[in-house]
Every structure is written in C-alpha cells, then in structure tokens.
C-alpha cells in the first residue's frame, strides 16, 4: 500500500463539459441556434414554444428537445404542430445533461435545424450549472410566481442572457412589481435582455421571435 497525492485542476464537471463543447462545435458547423429554456414548473415554456413554432412556420426549420422527469406530454404538444420533438425522460433527475442532448440527437431526427430549442426540466436551480452546448440560456419567470424569484434564485438570472417575464396578460390580477424585477435582473446581469410576453394574447411574442431571428443571423454571419 502506498499513498499518492495527485494535484490537478480539472473542472468537476469535466466529462459533461467535454460533451457540451463537442455539441457547441457541431451546432456552429450546422449554423443551428440553440436556446436553453429554464424556469420553474409551469412558467409557460412549452406554451411559448408553441407560439414561437406557429410564428416561424414556413420560415425556419425548428426542432425541440423536451426534458421532463416523466411523460411525453410536452413533446406531443410540439409534434402536434408538425415540428420534430424528442422527449428526454430524466427519471427523477432535476436537469438535462449534455450527454442526454447527444443521445437525443442520435436517436431522433432533429437535424438539420435552424433553431433547436431545449426545454429543460422545470427547475430554477439545477439546470443553471449544466452546459448543454447552447448559445444562451433563457430564464422564464411567470408573473404568478411572484416578483421575488430573481432575488431568491439569483444564479440563473445572472447567467441567462435573456429573461422572459411570461403570462403578462395576468399582470392586472396579481401583485408583481415589473419595474423592480427589471432593475434587479439588470443589476445581476448588466448585459442581458429582458422581455415581457404573453403567449395567450401574443404580447411580446414578436420581440421574442425577432431576438431569435437576429441571434440566428449573427451566428451565421461569416
């Protein structure tokens, strides 16, 4: 028996991050924009994707990877609109991992695509840490969840390039200080963008789609 001490400096998530890196190269090669949508359960991720798919019909090739603990429901909702979707079932895990994105791409017909949306498992904490090879993270916050979420879960709001306040049609019915949220998110993430949308009325959906279109154009600019 011999004791040995090895000094290394290796990212704790090195194995997973290598997958993410390979994915990012692949998406760069194919010119595919990949937004990673993160929010609490029920903030309106799938509903916003449905609205987005309808807006972009005939303009972009879209595919979707859905992450949920159980059920194919979300993928079925997207497929009903004629868009390829693959459901990753995490079986209890609270986030998606780059290996699962790899896996999804190898078993499902999702590529080629102009935009590949990843809807992460409903959770504001765990998905924050995991790189999926995405272009940017999108944090969604519905007005019914309360305006204190960015204060309670600052990590995701400081890392998401885009914050989307959803269910804006309900603003008249719930106490939600939009300006306070705007100010706080801006301080957490000075370079970020905040959008206010309602998938129900369509408010803000055009701005959201324009943001995606311009990010895609940027990515493809030689």
């Amino acid at each position: 028996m011999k004791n040995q001490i090895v000094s290394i400096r290796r990212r704790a998530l090195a194995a997973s991050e290598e997958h993410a890196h390979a994915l990012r190269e692949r998406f760069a090669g194919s010119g595919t924009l990949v937004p990673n949508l993160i929010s609490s359960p029920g903030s309106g991720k799938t509903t916003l994707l449905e609205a987005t798919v309808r807006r972009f019909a005939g303009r972009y090739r879209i595919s979707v990877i859905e992450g949920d603990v159980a059920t194919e429901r979300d993928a079925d909702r997207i497929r009903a609109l004629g868009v390829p979707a693959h459901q990753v079932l995490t079986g209890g895990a609270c986030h998606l991992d780059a290996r699962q994105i790899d896996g999804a791409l190898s078993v499902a017909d999702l590529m080629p695509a102009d935009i590949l949306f990843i809807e992460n498992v409903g959770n504001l904490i765990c998905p924050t840490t995991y790189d999926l090879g995405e272009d940017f993270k999108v944090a969604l916050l519905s007005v019914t969840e309360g305006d204190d979420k960015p204060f309670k879960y600052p990590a995701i709001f400081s890392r998401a390039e885009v914050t989307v306040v959803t269910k804006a049609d309900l603003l008249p019915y719930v106490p939600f200080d939009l300006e306070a949220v705007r100010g706080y998110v801006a301080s957490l993430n000075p370079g970020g963008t905040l959008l206010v949308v309602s998938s129900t009325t369509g408010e803000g959906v055009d701005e959201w789609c324009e943001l995606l279109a311009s990010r895609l154009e940027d990515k493809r600019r030689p």
Partner: protein
Amino acid sequence: MHEMGIAIEIYRTCRDTVAEHGGGRLRQVRIAVGELAAVEPDLLVFGWEAVVADTPDQGAALTVDFCRADQRCPACNQAKDRSEGSWLRICPDCGTPLEVRGGDELDVIEVSFETDEEGCP
C-alpha cells in the same frame, strides 16, 4: 438537491484521475467551489458521503475550498466587496456594472489515494 448530481460527477472525475495514475482507493479529495457557482458546500459534502458509501472508496473525505469572486468597479477603479448574501453586480458607490472575475470555480484540485500494489512506481 442538485449537489448530489455534482457529487456524482466529481466522483467520476476522481476515479478517472486515479485510473490514470495506476488505480487505487480514494482517501481524500480537495475541490474549489466559487461563491457564484450555485453550489452549497455542506450539501455537496453530504452528497459525496452518499456517493462513496458502499463503494471501495467509502470513507474518502471531501474538503471544499470556498473561493470568493474578485469584483472591480471600472469607474471607481477599485476592488469592491459584495455585501453578505447579495448578488448585485453593480458598484455600491456609483452604480456602474462591476467587472467580476472568478467565483464560478467548480474544480477538483487534489486527489489523494492509496495505490493497490506494494512498491509499484
């Protein structure tokens, strides 16, 4: 508790490291966790204990070095402290966005282990 998933990843990284050095049983692992990494050190240690239990590495200790982020205000041209528990990334004195360096570490920095064989190089 996502620290559990991270503990599993750390364990994988450590096992890989040991395997690259001839194999053996883990004794102690030292990691760096930044204050902005969204990882709770106590929960991570708790998760680690659960991960190594019932493996040949049972009892291996995880030590966490907690790293502060380095924040500078470009306008005041000085380092600024974050007030305890606050994530604000603006200068408390002049409101300019701060330049933040580090604080997002989640690194394995040292792996101690017992080699399987006597006197092997």
